[in-house]
């Protein structure tokens, strides 16, 4: 049965569709950390659901707090209409215990001027249904 989340957001138009999520290292990385008897970090953050983003991105704060290490690179298309290379990381993303993505490849983005630490892109939305209800000032996400 699909798991559905509805968030009432009084400032939906101003702030966009945001929600709280928990980010951790990916499941294979957690297994390795446990083998090495190291603490497994996790971080609750505010995330913006961004249908204009083809992939999910995290802030440097998340990279540092989760002690993530790069697993590759990815190209992003920027405002100067040129592609640039960014570090890529793997994380696990949790909406709650019933909606959990154990491995997500994400990019680092500069979110320092924003009140969010994660952009949820279409690579997550491809697994679910997203409803933006403007008049009711609420969003619903189902997986």
């Amino acid at each position: 049965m699909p798991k559905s989340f509805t968030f009432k957001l009084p400032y939906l138009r101003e702030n966009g569709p945001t929600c709280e999520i928990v980010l951790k290292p990916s499941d294979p990385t957690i297994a390795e950390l446990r083998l090495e008897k190291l603490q497994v970090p996790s971080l609750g953050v505010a995330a913006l659901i961004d249908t204009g983003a083809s992939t999910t991105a995290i802030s440097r704060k998340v990279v540092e707090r989760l002690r993530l290490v790069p697993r590759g690179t990815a190209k992003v298309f920027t405002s100067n209409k040129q592609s640039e290379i960014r570090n890529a990381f793997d994380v696990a993303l949790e909406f709650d215990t019933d909606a959990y993505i154990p491995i997500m490849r994400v990019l680092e983005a500069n979110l320092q001027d924003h009140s969010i630490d994660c952009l949820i892109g279409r690579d997550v939305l491809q697994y679910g249904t997203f409803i933006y209800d403007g008049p009711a000032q609420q969003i619903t996400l189902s997986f």
Partner: protein
Amino acid sequence: MEDNYFESETMIMPIVLEKEYNLFLNRLKEFLPDHHDQFVLIKGKDVVGFYDSYETALTEGLKRFGNVPFFIKEVKEEEDVHFFHQGIVF
């Protein structure tokens, strides 16, 4: 939210695996015939192997090297370029 998340360089980490990325680009033509759509695992100057999924490559990298930087990339002719809403051109 109309700023460009990728515009400023100041808060972005330097590219850690640039040498591995360049190795990948230099050898991509060699990889393509036998490993198209697989995921290559590269550590330093070594091409460790090719795997059917990102998860398998990641698990192998963790097993061999521990939780340290290593490079994983899907082998395909054209690398994906990720767009954000600011990239829309009218």
